[in-house]
């Protein structure tokens, strides 16, 4: 696996290859055909497949989600792109009341092969309505699958899997991950739901990092190493269905679990993962747990406050250190510039 490409290119390539393979795949959303082409993830596709299969839409998230549902009822496989996850709030009726429920409430007569791509923002003053990671909303509702790939490899494999899936998939991208590079095979392949990936082996504490927080967990693992602690790092990849088993097996070994979400903690993905692991291990293994995520406030744009809003590698390492030691140690590793540019490497 020699070829290294960016997350953006991986998303673009997956879309291109699936549109080439299957004429029923179509792509639309605000600005998918404009010069910026959604960070480049849709670049060239309007030219290649024409304006009927790739088109920018009116600013009508609610109706356009319903349009995607109607298209999928008619046998198309739409990919609906939202440059901000925050905008999905305008589409919740269609997503929750129809997309999630149609197969069931129509007794299996219909199904909706629908992909909804949405992006989470961070930094540069994104602020209250350009930073929200609301994947847990969608995990809560039966009938939706949720993928939050971290690496370019998983970005391509999950998107192809999502497009080929006969049911609705929420595909969550973090804008900062768009810049990441990593090994990606050129031929198509899928990364199916239900299998988390252990990204670093360890024995002392299990770190689960969701979406962008996987990167911070990988950095935290290196900090912990310098503190004499071997962390095991897990990327869930798919949040729904969630591979609780792989995480629980890791915690059975380590006895300590720190779940770092790129989102709020209350009723969140981290809470769900902690609950699933403790349900599995109760009575069999004593477990110490910790959730980390957004501060329980609205995201502030000013850097001095925004830096405090997010967990980072050092605060994660500090929390994991305390879990291992069993009490607050006040250990916070010195910042290391060599960990800033962690990139994803195989093999997978």
């Amino acid at each position, binding site marked *: 696996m020699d070829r290294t490409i960016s997350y953006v290119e991986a998303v673009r390539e997956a879309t291109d290859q699936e549109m080439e393979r299957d004429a029923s795949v*179509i792509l639309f959303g605000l600005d998918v055909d404009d010069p910026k082409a959604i960070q480049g993830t849709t670049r060239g596709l309007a030219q290649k497949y024409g304006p*009927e*299969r790739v088109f920018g*839409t*009116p600013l*009508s998230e*609610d*109706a*356009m*989600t*319903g*349009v*995607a*549902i*109607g*298209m*999928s*009822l*008619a*046998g*198309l496989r*739409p990919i609906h792109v939202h440059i901000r996850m925050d905008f999905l709030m305008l589409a919740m*009726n*269609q997503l929750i*009341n*129809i997309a999630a429920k*149609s*197969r*069931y*409430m*129509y*007794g*299996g*007569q*219909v*199904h909706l092969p629908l992909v909804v791509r949405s992006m989470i923002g961070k930094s540069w003053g994104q602020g209250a309505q350009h930073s929200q990671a609301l994947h847990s909303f969608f995990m809560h509702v*039966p*009938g939706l*699958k949720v993928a939050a790939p971290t690496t370019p490899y998983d970005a391509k494999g999950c998107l192809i899997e999502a497009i080929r*899936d*006969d*049911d609705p998939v929420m595909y969550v991208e973090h804008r900062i991950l768009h810049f990441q590079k990593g090994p990606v095979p050129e031929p198509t392949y899928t990364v199916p739901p239900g299998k988390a990936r252990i990204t670093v082996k360890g024995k002392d504490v299990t770190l689960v990092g969701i979406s962008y927080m996987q990167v911070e967990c990988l950095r935290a693992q290196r900090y912990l190493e310098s503190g004499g602690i071997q962390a095991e790092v897990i990327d869930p990849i798919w949040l729904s269905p969630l591979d609780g088993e792989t995480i629980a097996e890791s915690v059975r070994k380590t006895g300590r679990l720190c779940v770092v979400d790129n989102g709020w903690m209350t009723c969140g993905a981290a809470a769900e993962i902690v609950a699933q692991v403790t349900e599995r291990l109760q009575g069999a293994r004593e477990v110490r747990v910790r959730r980390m995520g957004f501060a329980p406030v609205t995201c502030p744009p000013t850097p001095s406050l925004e830096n405090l809003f997010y967990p980072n590698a050092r605060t994660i390492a500090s929390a994991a250190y305390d879990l291992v030691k069993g009490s607050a140690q006040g250990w916070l590793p010195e910042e290391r510039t060599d960990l800033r540019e962690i990139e994803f490497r195989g093999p997978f």
Partner: protein
Amino acid sequence: MHDRFYRSLYRIRRVEEEIIRVYPTDKIKSPVHLSIGQEAVSVGVCEALRADDVVFGSYRSHAVYLAKGGDLKKMIAELYGKATGCAKGKAGSMHLVDAAHGVMGASAVVGTTIPHAAGYAYALKLRRKDSVVVSFFGDGGADEGVFYESLNFAALKKLPMIFICENNSYAIHTHQLCRQPTANIAERARVFGVPAERIEDDVLRVHERVGAAVKALRAGEPGPFFFECLTYRWKEHVGPNDDFHLGYRTREEADPWMKNDQVKRLAGLLEADQRRRIESEVEAEIQAAFAFAEESPFPDGSELFTDMFK
């Protein structure tokens, strides 16, 4: 033609009267939003459609479902919550579906299926098909933002679809003019460049005008078309009863609509023999459908977890 229209109108009316008759037994375990009084819209529209055309509806969709060819036995079994229902007891009255006959679903949330019709129409256009899509919604649907977004998109992409606004003047108990500054729903569609007209409660007129629109769409003329069909709900918003005692509307307001009953009107256009034959056939069919529902089993407990994903 009149015999076909009468059969469909009479069948819908009688099915719902049977629902009313059975309802106090509590065998129908589903809220019912009856179409009685509004049959002419569904029948006039659906008689202009082919089997491969599709319709999307609201929670008040018994009439649309039946007029489009939805299976009667499966509908009644669905209302009874039986395994033989159109959705195996998972839809109830508000989400009737019969994809094989082009009834693509109905939503309890007002206005929700309007964009589904637009999306389906987009797919038909992309695939160069000559079938059409009809979206049924009420004057309450025209309160919703998604109505305007869908109208905008359908007009922008010139989609082969027909908007049918069944204006019965009320959203639950609130009159249109308490929710909208002017009663001009058809006019609003024209602002988007969509040909639109308002039609009185007349099944033959609905059929003629919608039929012309369907013909135009099949010939490749740009869509969509829009019809505001004036109609009146005779029964309460939900349930089997009259509701004039509530005071939000009067019996006097309803009288002219009831006098203009399209079921009776079409009955009068048929020979007595022909009418009686249709009626006895429909009665037998209805009796068989209710018997089928009564005799059918409830779904097995294992059905709780089926139909979530492929």
